[in-house]
């Protein structure tokens, strides 16, 4: 009985890997987290990417001559396993590797791919130091933490906030560094930091922290945090519960249906995200196509983000006009103003973290209201 279950499971994973590649196929190796803590980000990204790959292959492959083959392997959200999987994918002849949506496993995989001279793109790692830690064959596919922070800081200054309190968690680079980048950008523009609090991710208890904020005199003008589920809902519930009405700024981690389900608690919260579907925008059209394809509206921007990764690969290989990994790397590094469904994407002139549009969204009566969209002034972006 137990053996049968195991066979079934391993069979299911074997079925995910595709047939051997043809001579002119682009082989993309995907070291993705389909289980574990990163699965919530990698799964939707993969689904979006697969949709784009299907479209490309239906049209005869990239530039009509390079059909895409994928080899998908689960990393279980484990960095060591990601490195192992990356090596297997390199050995299997992948010309391009996709790594999970986080800097740590992406660095682990990057150590392998950099040495092998194969370009690697992280689904959505946001830590701007990722390409610095790996090298010139490492890229990411998402607006970096410091870019989001600069947008939020510009908004804070425009809103007339003079003092800000940041809430960080040392448990991840994202929850620690993004608010700190915000603090840097905000003070550089004349704001002042009123304090920094910390929390443990997943603990859901903010009683002690909230009591401290409530006792601050004067209270800060704004609170900025990159906390996301389950911490953000618990924090905002306890903060408002303690009678603190200070405005809150958040980042893309809270762009999820749970946040919008919190009702009055999140009224007025402004957060940064990778895309906003304005009327007539490519993202709105993409969302409609996705809904038609799956029967359900996309619940996260990561699906469109994965779809755009397919477009990046297509453009890079078209520019390279070859399947040579080094040429593909150069193709990615020279992309400029590529139109994705989430906006324009530029790698040229960066170290590997793309310049992409960031949207600021305000939650109003459970709906999204666009506050700002675009890229911050490069001079305002804190150094990684």
């Amino acid at each position, binding site marked *: 009985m137990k053996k049968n279950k195991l066979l079934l499971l391993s069979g299911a994973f074997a079925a995910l890997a595709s047939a051997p590649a043809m001579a002119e196929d682009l082989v993309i190796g995907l070291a993705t987290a*389909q*289980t*574990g*803590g990163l*699965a*919530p980000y990698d*799964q*939707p990204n993969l689904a979006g990417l697969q949709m784009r790959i299907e479209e490309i292959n239906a049209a005869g492959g990239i530039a009509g001559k390079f059909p895409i083959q994928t080899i998908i392997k689960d990393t279980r959200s484990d960095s060591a396993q990601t490195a192992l999987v990356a090596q297997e994918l390199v050995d299997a002849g992948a010309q391009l590797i996709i790594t999970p949506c986080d800097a740590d496993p992406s660095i682990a995989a990057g150590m392998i791919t950099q040495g092998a001279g194969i370009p690697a793109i992280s689904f959505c790692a946001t830590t701007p130091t990722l390409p610095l830690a790996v090298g010139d064959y490492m890229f990411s596919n998402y607006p970096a933490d410091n870019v989001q922070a600069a947008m939020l800081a510009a908004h804070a200054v425009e809103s007339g906030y003079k003092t800000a309190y940041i809430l960080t968690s*040392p448990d991840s680079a994202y929850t620690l560094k993004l608010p700190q980048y915000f603090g840097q950008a905000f003070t550089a523009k004349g704001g002042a930091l009123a*304090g*920094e*609090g*910390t929390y*443990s991710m*997943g*603990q*859901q*208890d903010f*009683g*002690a*922290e909230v*009591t*401290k904020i*409530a*006792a601050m005199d004067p209270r800060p003008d704004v609170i900025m945090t990159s906390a996301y*589920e*389950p911490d953000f*809902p*618990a924090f905002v*519930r*306890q903060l*408002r*519960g*303690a*009678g603190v009405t200070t405005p809150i700024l958040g980042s893309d981690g809270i762009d*999820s*249906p*749970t946040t*919008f*389900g*919190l*009702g*009055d*608690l999140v009224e007025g919260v402004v957060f940064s995200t990778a895309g906003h579907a304005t009327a007539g925008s490519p993202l709105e059209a993409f969302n409609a196509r996705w809904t038609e394809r799956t029967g359900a509206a996309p*619940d*996260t921007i990561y699906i469109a983000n994965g779809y755009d990764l397919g477009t990046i690969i297509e453009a890079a290989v078209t520019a390279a006009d070859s399947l040579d990994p080094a040429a593909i790397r150069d193709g990615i590094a020279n992309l400029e103003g590529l139109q994705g469904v989430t906006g324009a994407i530029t790698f040229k002139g960066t170290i590997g973290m793309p310049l992409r549009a960031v949207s600021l969204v305000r939650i109003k009566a459970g709906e999204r209201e666009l506050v700002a969209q675009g890229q911050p002034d490069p001079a305002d972006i804190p150094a990684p």
Partner: protein
Amino acid sequence: MDIFLQQLLNALSLGGTYALLALGLAVVFSIIGLINFAHGELMTVTGYAICFALIWGLPFPLAVMAGLAVAVVAALLMERIAFRPVRGASGTTLLLTSFAVSAILRVLFQNLISARPIPVSIPASLSGVLTIGPLHLGMIQLISIIVTLVMLLGLNLFLHRTMAGRAMRAAAEDFAVLRLMGLRANSVVATAFAISGLLAGVAGLLWVAQRGSVDPLMGALPVLKAFIAAIIGGLGSLSGAVAGGFLLGFIEVILQAYLPESLLPYRDAFAILLVIAVLLFRPQGLLARKTPVKL
């Protein structure tokens, strides 16, 4: 002073949740010597049950009942399918079995339900706040404290006033003698799992009410905290588990409140250090059961 009282209240509420969780672990451990690391997945199951019951249109109180019922059934199934076949095996085997159950359930949740969190619409009334003078107490925190006390009281009555409860206490003392008395081991163990399921269900409900969503991995952290609390209290001792839960909650909140800002990132390290200090003085935990030396 007001701030200190408020922090005490915070500690009471956090400690209450830990106590509920640790009690769930201790009830099972006291009977069959198993630390059930899949206890957290029982919380997750409760969350999903409540979530889907609400989606099907059940009113909130009914959805909560359904969630608790599902937790109890899931705990019983866990016992029947995974733990009964290895009952009496070494502690290591039991421990690894519970890790396996937990890992399998998480992967099933991720691949059959969704890897992404699913929102649970918690009634707005649960976001309310009770203000007593200068003190604020969130509705959910208040309910945590009340529910913890009710569960503790109920469990105490059950263990001392009912036949099944007495059988469980006897089983914790000496399982072999209990069987010699003609009591069915299976039903005693099943009762323990049912109680642990109910405790996990209640803790799961409070946990989900706080976060407003269910995700496949949400049980991981609470069960770890429960384990620490149960260790401080003395594994296998029910009152110890409760004391351990409250002590852990107290330590965490007080450290968060009074550590200097530069040391705050190390709060969990300090909390664990204090736990180690407690264990140095009481290696068996605060309220350890006195195990007679077998000759």
